């Protein structure tokens, strides 16, 4: 460590690891960010990017490794400490206080004070207006944060972070829900911050943005550091192969299946403020991909179709028979299965055993005279867990002890056990390692080949393009394009996904 402080990087992480119980989220993360630069961090879902960010922010304490800020070793145990050291973080998921006003959300904990340590509200409103002007958005600083769209929530997070005046600004997928115009504004702000000599870390799955904005890029895979390149010296395809660690093609083993009768028919489904006039059709043996930006309302549509949420108007039918609204159980009876996007919160009862999870939907049919014992459940669940090759030592292990991929297999096993006609699967491979990812894709393909109708929602463009027979694109709760496999190019899908927004300005 001969280098003087001036030459020391703003942030330096070496071999940082972090586990959550049995889950190793970060194996050996390394990152070195210089002042006056924008450093992109890329990697597949679940590569450990957000975990790395949270270690920097002081949300998690690392298990091992070194962590230096401006050449000084640090060890944050709370986000307050990291803030004090000049680190501002935009988390992947918005963290707003719904009951408070937008302005209070931005300045919480460091409000502008007037005489007598009194909060100076007018000054805060003015400052918030200034921030929003700089970001080129119109949000009323006095309105409550509750009810903001995902994009607006993300804007508030950005405003919050840049108002911190930090030497290191970390942005975890800030653009996922933003449209082109907003992204451009954000980038202008980011560049001006860089030119002021601050360091920025930028996480995104969109390569065009990475190449547009960043100076340097670090690739992560499976919780480990892989490589760091300067943007000028690399290409998107090189990054992809670094990220995935092998050829991309065999990730999507799509086999052509015979397309049969329509299974799912959705007509004019609407819900105020969320989605409007959704018409969808999925046929037996067909995989329909539902694409769009985060917050476009894809999950909401799926949930309404399955009956977990209610809808205002429209109709849903399976194999020509209407499905009762807001009644998941009757949807299941009619042959629907739904694998939700949030495995830990919606897909599984994470603190329950493998058996209970797998037998969760079919337990009515395995009960004898209404009575149910653990051994009856074990007998019913074991074979299904086995078919999907769930890796666990015993059936009474809780799902929380398993890796994300295995948890996903448990969810799939649970729904396949119901012999569905239609499978709705939301983000099938979010947070799953590459090997398992291909396995899941193969399984989906196989199921479609057996005549199952599949509606697949995914934020990963390659996944949608690689797996779907037909792609439906959603933007702000409306269908903006319906593309056949042949027509579905990345450009076409992305255009449709931001369509509404771009024509507006």
């Amino acid at each position, binding site marked *: 460590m001969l280098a003087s402080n001036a030459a020391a990087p703003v942030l330096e992480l070496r071999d940082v690891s972090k586990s959550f119980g049995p889950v190793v989220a970060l194996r050996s993360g390394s990152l070195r960010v210089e002042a006056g630069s924008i450093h992109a961090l890329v990697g597949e879902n679940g590569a450990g990017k957000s975990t790395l960010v949270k270690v920097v*922010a*002081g*949300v998690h304490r690392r298990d091992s490794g070194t962590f230096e800020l401006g050449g000084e070793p640090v060890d944050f145990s*709370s*986000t*307050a*400490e*990291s*803030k004090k050291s000049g680190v501002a973080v935009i*988390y992947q998921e918005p*963290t*707003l*206080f*719904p*009951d*408070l006003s937008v302005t*209070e959300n931005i300045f*919480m*904990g*460091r*409000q502008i*004070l007037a005489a007598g*340590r*009194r*909060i100076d509200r007018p000054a805060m*409103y003015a400052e918030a207006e200034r921030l*929003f002007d700089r970001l080129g*958005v*119109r*949000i*009323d*600083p*006095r*309105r*409550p944060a*509750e*009810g*903001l*769209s995902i*994009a*607006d929530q993300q*804007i508030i997070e950005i405003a919050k972070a840049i108002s911190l005046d930090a030497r290191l600004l970390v942005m975890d997928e800030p653009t996922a829900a933003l*449209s082109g*115009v907003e992204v451009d504004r954000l980038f202008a702000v980011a560049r001006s911050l860089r030119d002021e000599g601050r360091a920025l870390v930028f996480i995104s799955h969109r390569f065009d943005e990475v190449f547009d904005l960043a100076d340097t890029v670090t690739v992560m895979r499976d919780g480990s550091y892989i490589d760091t390149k300067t943007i000028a010296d690399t290409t998107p395809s090189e990054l992809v192969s670094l990220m995935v660690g092998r050829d991309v093609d065999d990730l999507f083993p799509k086999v052509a299946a015979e397309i049969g009768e329509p299974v799912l028919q959705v007509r004019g489904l609407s819900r*105020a*403020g*969320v989605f*409007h006039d959704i018409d969808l059709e999925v046929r037996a043996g067909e995989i329909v991909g539902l694409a769009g930006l985060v917050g476009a309302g894809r999950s909401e549509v799926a949930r309404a179709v399955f009956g977990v949420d209610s809808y205002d108007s429209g109709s849903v039918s399976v194999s020509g028979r209407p499905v009762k609204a807001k009644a998941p159980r009757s949807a299941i009876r009619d042959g629907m299965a739904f694998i939700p996007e949030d495995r830990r919160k919606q897909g599984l009862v994470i603190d329950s055993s493998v058996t209970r999870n797998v037998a969760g939907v079919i337990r009515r049919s395995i009960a004898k005279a209404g009575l149910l014992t653990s051994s009856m459940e074990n007998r019913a669940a074991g074979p299904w867990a086995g078919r999907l090759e769930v890796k666990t030592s015993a059936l009474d292990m809780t799902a929380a002890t398993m890796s994300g991929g295995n948890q996903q297999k448990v969810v799939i096993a649970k729904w396949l056990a119901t012999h569905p006609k239609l499978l709705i699967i939301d983000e099938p491979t979010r947070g799953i390692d590459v090997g398992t990812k291909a396995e899941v894709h193969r399984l989906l393909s196989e199921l479609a080949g057996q005549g199952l109708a599949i509606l697949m929602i995914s934020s990963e463009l390659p996944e949608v393009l690689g797996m779907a027979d037909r792609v439906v694109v959603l933007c*702000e709760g409306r269908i903006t394009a319906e593309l056949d496999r042949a027509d579905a190019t990345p450009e076409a899908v992305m255009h449709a996904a931001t369509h*509404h*927004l771009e*024509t*507006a*300005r």
Partner: protein
Amino acid sequence: MSHTDIERPDSSHDDSHTEVSASEALLVEPSRLSPTRRALTTVLRSRELSIFLVLVAVVVLATTKNNAFLFSSDGWRNFLLNPSILLLLAVGQAVVIITRNVDLSVGSVMALTAYLTGRLFIEQPNIPIVAVLAACLLLGAVLGLVNGVLVAYGGVPALVITLGTLYIYRGIMLTWAGSDRINAGDLPREFLQLGTRSVLGVPLLTILALVVLAIVGYYLYTARGGRELYAIGSDPDAAVLYGLPVRRRLLAAFVLSGALAGLAGALYTARYGTVSSSVGLGIELQAVAAAVIGGVAIFGGSGTVWGAAIGAFLLVTINRALPSLGIEDFWQRAVVGALILGAIVLDRVLAVRQARKLAESRDHS
């Protein structure tokens, strides 16, 4: 999205600056209203005002039936005096509930300090009154701190912890007091006068309670710490991510609630002159009720101590008014229960309507 002007055939976006009702604008774009209009609409639509109007209605009704309800010197005094003790508890409770917790031990804390007051005067007849009040505040704060530590560091819901300390504190008080009890004769005259004397027609006790209310209300509205309490109650996980000193604030909220309950205990002794084993029995539920009726959301994050204070006034005044209105006061608890249920159902309806309006505003802006 409110910040993007989207062309959409079904939305007439050119009228968006004129044809919105004040209440809707208040929700979605309050800055568009002029400051006076904004303030007016905020006040007119507040829970505090509606509950205040209910209070006024009760008083008017009772007074028309019986003039003495308000217009005798005793009636006026009691109208102000009787709610004062509950008001203190409701203020403390409101602060705790705003952080998405609850403090059920206040009745027992109050019993302990009420007895402490008497004991102090018996053992040290010349002790200054201020010292006794300070001792009660301190004991209450310590008991509140115990709650706070267990809740903030134990990771256990406050309901369970304070249910446990409700038993423990009262048990300690009863064991300490034995079959002993405090009579008016044990207490110095000046102290008893504290419970009854008035200044300019307003009882001292009420002034004290209102001063506490004003300080806490001002703090919650204008201090960083106060706003952080709201943030913690609004989303505790986000508050941690944010780096707010969550544990310290929780401790402070419980200490405040405990200290105010401690003060309430001393004032109870001054007001009633006797301390028996039943001091403050069941008053914790009244304090929670006052806060909830006054618009403090039981799941934290919103509401004001002003509302809680009006809630306390309403509860006590209804109790006093029932006999005047020809209803046996045995029904008072039923009325309180119905009020609580009415308040939370109303909150729910309003919240659902607000959420719906906000969601729809995303479609139309």
